[in-house]
């Protein structure tokens, strides 16, 4: 490829992302979601360095401090929990754990599920049948129940929680990757590679994987909100990650016993779970529309067509 065509290719790619960005700005919901998520990620990554102290230091003088008062400084604007720890700081620290677990689980199931699915689709035959039957087993059993049983047995540490959450999402990726692979397998360049004697492993890595990966990424974006909800549900039932680490779900559970006297202990962490999943869903919705040529016009002419 000559340098000039490469430059043209890059430019068109750049232009495409500019177009996409303009389309994003035109959708107020999606714009707000992106801003919220970016802020959240920034807080989750850098916040705990500064806020670890107020999030974990007990101060009985500030027990169940009510929210929306700046008397004790901005850190206590969302109140304090039953041990006098700043709710705002705890939400930021909890965000880091929640997001880290969810991203770990999504990454794990995307990679493992993708590889298993591609393998099943490419090899076919009875291996594929067995794999698909096993995914049926996973699907036909309530994921939360399975996670509860398994975590109770192997113990809820960080690795196990990530693994079991990822395990629950596996069927989604296996099915998607397999379906895609079934189609790609029949294409000319794959047959050509096979005829030239390229090994199965090399074909999968070099020819199938790059084509399946974008689809899996989209699935992951849609799946992320679901995994966050699943994780928080587990933590809420007490089988998520254990103290001293905590996630938003565990904070909601901890606040339950003070429901009558200090509603903000349960309310705010859950509210942030919802803001996060809502933003992710809004963004995924927009992404689906923006990448689907049949629906794209809705975004570009949405404003003019208002009745």
């Amino acid at each position, binding site marked *: 490829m000559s340098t000039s065509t490469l430059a043209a290719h890059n430019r068109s790619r750049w232009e495409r992302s500019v177009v996409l960005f303009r389309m994003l700005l035109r959708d107020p*919901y999606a714009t707000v979601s992106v801003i919220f998520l970016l802020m959240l990620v920034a807080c989750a990554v850098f916040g705990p360095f500064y806020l670890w102290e107020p999030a974990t230091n007990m101060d009985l003088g500030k027990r169940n401090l009510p929210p929306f008062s700046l008397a004790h400084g901005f850190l206590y604007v969302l109140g304090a929990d039953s041990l006098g720890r700043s709710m705002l700081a705890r939400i930021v620290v909890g965000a880091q754990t929640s997001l880290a677990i969810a991203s770990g689980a999504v990454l794990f199931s995307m990679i493992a599920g993708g590889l298993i699915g591609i393998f099943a689709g490419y090899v076919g035959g009875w291996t594929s049948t067995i794999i698909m*039957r*096993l995914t*049926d*087993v996973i*699907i*036909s*059993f*309530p*994921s*939360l*129940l399975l996670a*509860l*049983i*398994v975590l*109770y*047995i192997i113990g809820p540490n960080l690795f196990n929680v990530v693994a079991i959450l990822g395990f629950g999402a596996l069927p989604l990726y296996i099915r998607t990757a397999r379906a895609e692979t079934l189609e790609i397998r029949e294409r000319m360049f794959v047959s050509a590679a096979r005829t030239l004697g390229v090994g199965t492993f090399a074909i999968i890595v070099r020819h199938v994987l790059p084509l399946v990966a974008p689809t899996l990424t989209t699935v992951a974006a849609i799946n992320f*909100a679901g995994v966050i*909800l699943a994780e*928080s*549900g587990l933590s*809420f*039932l007490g089988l998520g990650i254990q103290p001293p680490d905590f996630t938003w*779900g565990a904070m*909601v*559970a901890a606040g*339950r016993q003070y*429901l*009558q006297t200090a*509603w903000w202990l*349960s*309310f705010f962490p*859950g*509210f942030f*779970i*919802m803001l996060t*999943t*809502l933003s*992710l*869903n*809004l963004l995924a*919705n927009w992404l689906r529309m923006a990448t689907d040529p049949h629906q794209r016009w*809705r975004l570009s002419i*949405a404003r003019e*067509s*208002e*009745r």
Partner: protein
Amino acid sequence: MLQFILRRALNSSIALVGLLVAVFVLTRMTGDPASLYLPAEATAEQRAAYADQMGYSDPIIVQFGRYVEGLLHFDFGTSMRQQRSAMEAVMEAVPTTILLSSLAFSITLVVAVAVGALAASRPGGIFDRMATTISLVGASAPDFWVAIVGVLVFAVALNLLPTSGMGGPQYWVMPVIVVALRPTGLLTQVVRGTMISVLSSPYVKTAKAKGLGHRAVLGHALRSSWLPVITVAGDMAVGMINGSIIAETVFGLHGMGKVLIDAIMQRDFAVVQSAVLIIAIGIFVLNILIDVLYGLVDPRIRYNK
């Protein structure tokens, strides 16, 4: 059709057996029941005797054989904690869960189809945008948090509904809504999406061109959007068990989820297995029902693959 259903049933029963084996092995790994059911000062010999007596010292394959043998003449084992038939303890909780999930499922289906179809009839309109936003919020809400906020608002602040427990209809309002909320949000989006694509298909345009009224057109389109709705609704019914566990925990209902969680915590193996068996059979029946529904809704499905 019968042959198709039989084949599907065979396929699903493989899944069922796989699940039972997995749960059997997994529960045996939860730890030694002797340490939980004998006093702390029990000697090693007493523990061994207890394990022998209950059959826990045999190899796991022998234990499994015994379990399957029991299943064949409907012996599901004895609950160690409650000293009675494990199945009895589980069956007691079944009506609660069935009532909870079937109420929630009906609400989900009715609301989602009505709202989704109406929203799709005028895409981009006021109602559509409201429905889309609200259904997204519903699909994003963590169910346990909704349950707690519900308690805060309707029980603590307004004193309209009881906080938890079992009893008359007022005890069921919040649990049912909590279980139904997320599925309703998801299904509304599915119905809306399929309806929009069906409404722009040629046969609907023909019907409109021939002067068919708005409502009749909607009815036409609704029929053909049943298929994806049934697919999603089937997955959703399985997911309702997840919601029921949360709702039963928060609202103190004595359902399958509660029984199962308690049994896991107490290492009551027989109860765990019986509960899983019942849930799995329920899902098994549900899957077959869905397959039959497919055939009824879409005659193009020929049942030969």
